[in-house]
């Protein structure tokens, strides 16, 4: 029984923290009505935590492409590309993503998590160092662990700290992979890419930027932080996901380093995972075109994000450091966060709840993700709901 005892400990901790009968994590969704609305229990709710930044999950172009692909190529590939081959869609999407970033090479992966797992563990190995931001996503931590490289953290977005840690490495900084994110998923803030690139060049390191939350959100054509800062040629590897702005599932890595293609032969998460389904690839290709041309979608997204951020600031909520489509309400205790989360759900608004130790600095988060598809009325209603709950939360 000792093998299973640790899971009993998890169950006890969960029971102590969360009330009976409420599925806070993995809440059952009964029906999905649109990119912003669904049914939970018997109630119609507003999605405000889904990372559907451009609202493309029901875009007719994507639906049509997925239907056509499933009819012509079937429901799945039933195996890895290494063993079962690369479909035309896989290869076409890789060319299209490489063109989108004006890069030489691209590899497509089955999930965004896997994109980081496969890329990091393929690039770094025993004897190398990976230097990662303290607020990095779990996929980055897990990719680093799988690589066997030494993992060093620097304080979140603290460039003096990154400089100090690179200096300590001495000559080893040349075999160091620095990893940052375009927009951080916890607090919604951007990486200080100009300073990271300066340090990367000073210490002759390699830089990987994860644009999971910034693809489609930043830059004129939606490339992400690399486009907003004009630094695409300074970033060695860019990873990202299809499951946010592109409304599907999957991930990618693009680079101008010719070595990227060799990851196909050494990266175990790539080699041993079944390839993306034809429908997923087809909808992603259609969504990528919409994302590239989606200047107005990005304008609407940012209008909604600034409106909600500003309203929550006025109400006195403690938020992440800058406006962004990821808006994190930072709360001192799990109880406050749970009360806010429940209060919002009772008002028909479904958001993310993040409790310690998953949230930074021992705090708890109630995280909203804004979409271009949210209407002005929906944003006003969200603001009104937060206003109603303020006195209950901070009494």
């Amino acid at each position, binding site marked *: 029984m000792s093998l299973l005892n640790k899971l009993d400990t998890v169950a006890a901790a969960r029971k102590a923290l969360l009330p009976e009968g409420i599925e806070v994590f993995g809440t059952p969704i009964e029906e999905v009505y649109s990119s912003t609305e669904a049914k939970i229990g018997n109630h119609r709710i507003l999605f405000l935590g889904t990372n559907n930044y451009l609202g493309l999950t029901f875009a007719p172009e994507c639906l049509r492409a997925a239907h056509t692909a499933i009819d012509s190529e079937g429901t799945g590939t039933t195996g890895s590309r290494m063993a079962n081959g690369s479909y035309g869609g896989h290869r076409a999407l890789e060319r299209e993503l490489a063109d989108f970033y004006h890069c030489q090479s691209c590899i497509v992966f089955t999930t965004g998590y896997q994109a980081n797992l496969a890329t990091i563990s393929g690039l770094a190995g025993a004897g190398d*160092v990976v230097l990662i931001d*303290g607020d990095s996503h779990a996929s980055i931590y897990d990719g680093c*662990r799988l690589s066997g490289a*030494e*993992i*060093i*953290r620097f304080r979140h977005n603290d460039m003096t700290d990154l400089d100090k840690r690179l200096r*300590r490495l001495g000559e080893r900084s040349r075999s160091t992979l620095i990893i940052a994110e375009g927009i951080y998923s916890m607090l919604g803030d951007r990486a200080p890419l100009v300073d990271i690139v300066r340090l990367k060049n000073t210490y002759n390191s390699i830089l990987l930027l994860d644009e999971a939350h910034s693809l489609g959100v930043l830059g004129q054509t939606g490339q992400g932080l690399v486009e907003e800062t004009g630094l695409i040629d300074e970033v060695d590897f860019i990873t990202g996901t299809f499951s946010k702005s592109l409304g599907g599932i999957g991930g990618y890595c693009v680079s101008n380093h010719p070595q990227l293609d060799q990851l196909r032969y050494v990266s175990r998460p790539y080699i041993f995972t079944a390839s993306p389904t034809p429908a997923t690839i087809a909808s992603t290709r259609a969504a990528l075109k919409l994302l590239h041309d989606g200047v107005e979608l990005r304008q609407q997204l940012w209008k909604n994000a600034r409106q909600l951020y500003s309203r929550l600031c006025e109400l006195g909520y403690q938020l992440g450091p800058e406006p962004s489509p990821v808006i994190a309400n930072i709360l001192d205790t799990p109880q406050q966060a749970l009360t806010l989360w429940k209060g919002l759900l009772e008002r028909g608004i479904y958001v993310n709840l993040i409790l310690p130790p998953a949230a930074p600095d021992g705090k708890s988060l109630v995280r909203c993700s804004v979409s271009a598809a949210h209407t002005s009325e929906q944003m006003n209603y969200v603001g009104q709901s937060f206003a109603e709950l303020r006195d209950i939360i901070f009494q």
Partner: protein
Amino acid sequence: MASNYPDILQKLYHHLKQFTGPDVEITPQTDLINQLAIDSVKLLNLIMEIEDEFDISVPINALADVQTVHELANLIHQIKSAKQ
């Protein structure tokens, strides 16, 4: 700058005090997780403090074998000794 084991242990006690009440005694045998309730995130943040205190790099992979104060002090000692 401290580089011998007893000095490292003393400095480590100072950093670990933030996780305990004033009358809790920390010894080399104190278990970081079970007695000081240092969760995974607190441990990673503690490591950054330790790196700055001792001017070393502590790979977080090395923490898999660390459970007690002694084991952490020993790891720091080994890294500092290898650097000198």
